């Protein structure tokens, strides 16, 4: 097994473009950006993994032709919201095993097109699909409020944090023009009680790309720049426990995030206290609250206390979470979402995150970041990125 590095990252800003931007157009910006960042051309790429959920069949292979026709293997990967993360994992496994030296991971999607065409997986004819994602995660919140006395204000504080982080991210879909307060989040209109519009991720479009290769290449291509290594990777599906819900496009038991995070901690020989920042699947804010505990950032039942202290803000006492705005503010087009987390974590570890730069208490650059995604069905995908 070889050590694997992120050689380069690129993004097209997430946004609701409708017919204004094509997947190919956005992918070119993200992909060429990532190649430039790595110091490579497409001729250097040995294999490509294309992640998309909503785009039609052949989209991955056809869009890769925009970069060149070099005969390399091109493979589409799909795993719902975790599509981009799952695609990165395939590239990581292949480079780690020595099959390729350079692999390109491209994620793209246009959720606005999907909504307009009415070809969503959710159809009124399917009784089980009456439970939309918003409703499903709202039920997490209702249960949490029942068990722990969580208040909508706790949820609003998380959303406000993510909006304010996203305001410093040029790739974020929701660019707040003013400081966002919890009060504004609470007043933003109900989606599924108790989740409001600003506690829910937007519908949008975008593309993101990561170039994966060997650590030796990273050192050679960009001498002097910090090398960002993938030090752990896992993808887990559900394990049966009493109370498991089999109906609908749900996200699985809480145990998936516990088991998956334990797996990456073990692989890398680290613990949650070693993390400088974490990106999570905050499609709805209640998820981020639960993941604080499930990923071990704090103990069970302590999330609310730490939210009140601002412990998960950039510069907070525990660990910065959703530093690029998360799914709530940066956006969640589908295929590229997990790769946007890789983009953010790579820039942070290199010290290139500008106004949202995370620093350790002694002023040093961050060393270790986690990227956590859930995909409906369901799966949990986690990567740990570390500055060498």
């Amino acid at each position, binding site marked *: 097994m070889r050590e694997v590095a992120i050689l380069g990252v690129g993004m097209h800003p997430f946004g609701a473009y409708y017919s204004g931007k094509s997947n190919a157009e956005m992918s070119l910006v993200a992909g060429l950006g990532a190649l430039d960042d790595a110091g490579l051309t497409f001729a250097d790429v040995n294999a490509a993994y294309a992640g998309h959920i909503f785009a039609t069949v052949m989209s991955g292979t056809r869009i890769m032709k925009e970069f060149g026709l070099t005969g390399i293997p091109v493979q589409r990967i799909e795993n719902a919201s975790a599509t981009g993360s799952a695609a990165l994992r395939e590239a990581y496994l292949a480079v780690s095993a020595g099959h390729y030296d350079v692999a390109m991971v491209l994620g793209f999607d246009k959720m606005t097109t999907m*909504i307009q065409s*009415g070809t*969503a997986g*959710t*159809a*009124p*004819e*399917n*009784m*089980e*699909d*009456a*439970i*939309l994602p*918003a*409703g*499903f995660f*709202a*039920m*997490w*919140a*209702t*249960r949490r409020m*029942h068990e722990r006395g969580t208040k909508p204000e706790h949820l609003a504080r998380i959303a406000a944090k993510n909006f304010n982080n996203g305001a410093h991210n040029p790739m974020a879909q929701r660019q707040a023009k003013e400081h966002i307060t919890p009060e504004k989040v609470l007043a933003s*209109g*109900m*989606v*599924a*009680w*108790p*989740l409001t519009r600003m506690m829910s991720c937007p519908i949008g479009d975008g593309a993101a790309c990561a170039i994966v290769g060997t650590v030796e290449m990273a050192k050679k291509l960009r001498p002097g720049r910090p090398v960002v290594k993938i030090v752990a990777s896992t993808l887990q599906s559900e394990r*049966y426990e*009493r*109370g*498991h*819900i*089999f*109906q*609908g496009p*749900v996200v699985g038991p809480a145990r998936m995030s516990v088991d998956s995070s334990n797996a990456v901690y073990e692989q890398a020989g680290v613990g949650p206290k070693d993390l400088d920042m974490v990106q999570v699947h905050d499609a709805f804010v209640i998820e981020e609250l639960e993941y604080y505990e499930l990923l071990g950032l704090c103990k069970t039942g302590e999330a609310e206390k730490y939210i009140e202290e601002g412990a998960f803000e950039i510069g907070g006492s525990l660990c910065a979470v959703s530093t690029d705005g998360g799914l709530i503010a940066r956006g969640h087009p589908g295929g590229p979402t997990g790769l946007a987390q890789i983009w953010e974590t790579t820039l942070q570890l290199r010290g290139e995150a500008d106004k949202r730069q995370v620093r350790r208490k002694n002023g040093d650059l961050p060393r270790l970041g986690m990227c956590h995604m859930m995909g409906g069905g369901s799966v949990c995908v986690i990567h740990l990125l570390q500055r060498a």
Partner: protein
Amino acid sequence: MPDTPRPRQPIKPGFFTVPDDPAQAPKLLGTRCDTCGEYFYPRRAVCAKCMSRKTSEVELDARGTLYSYTFVHLPLFGSTNMEHADGYGVGQIDLPEGPRIQSPLAGKQAEFKVGQALEGELAVLRDDGGTDIMIVRFRPVGEARQ
């Protein structure tokens, strides 16, 4: 002459019964593992707990306790069939045999509380050329319990 009852059929076969007698409650179509005894809804061929292939089809009473719930204020994509003005309720309900199911709720938000007893009923979703298309909804029974 009494009116001939309108024909009724489930929105999707294989999930619940639609009894001929409109006064009767629907039954949920589940599975019981012959090897370990675990119950499942909806039906499945292989036990998810012990992976035994020896499973039996069972009919479960549509009643249980409310594990969690919400009222959704977004329309279903393309749907005009459900009432959205005050949101529509959906819940997760624990059946006494073990399965946790998801179902639309009948009633207003203030009527629901985590832990309360619910029972299922048939409701007409829409008229399909003279046939009533039926769904199961759950509504509160008795007092909320802790």
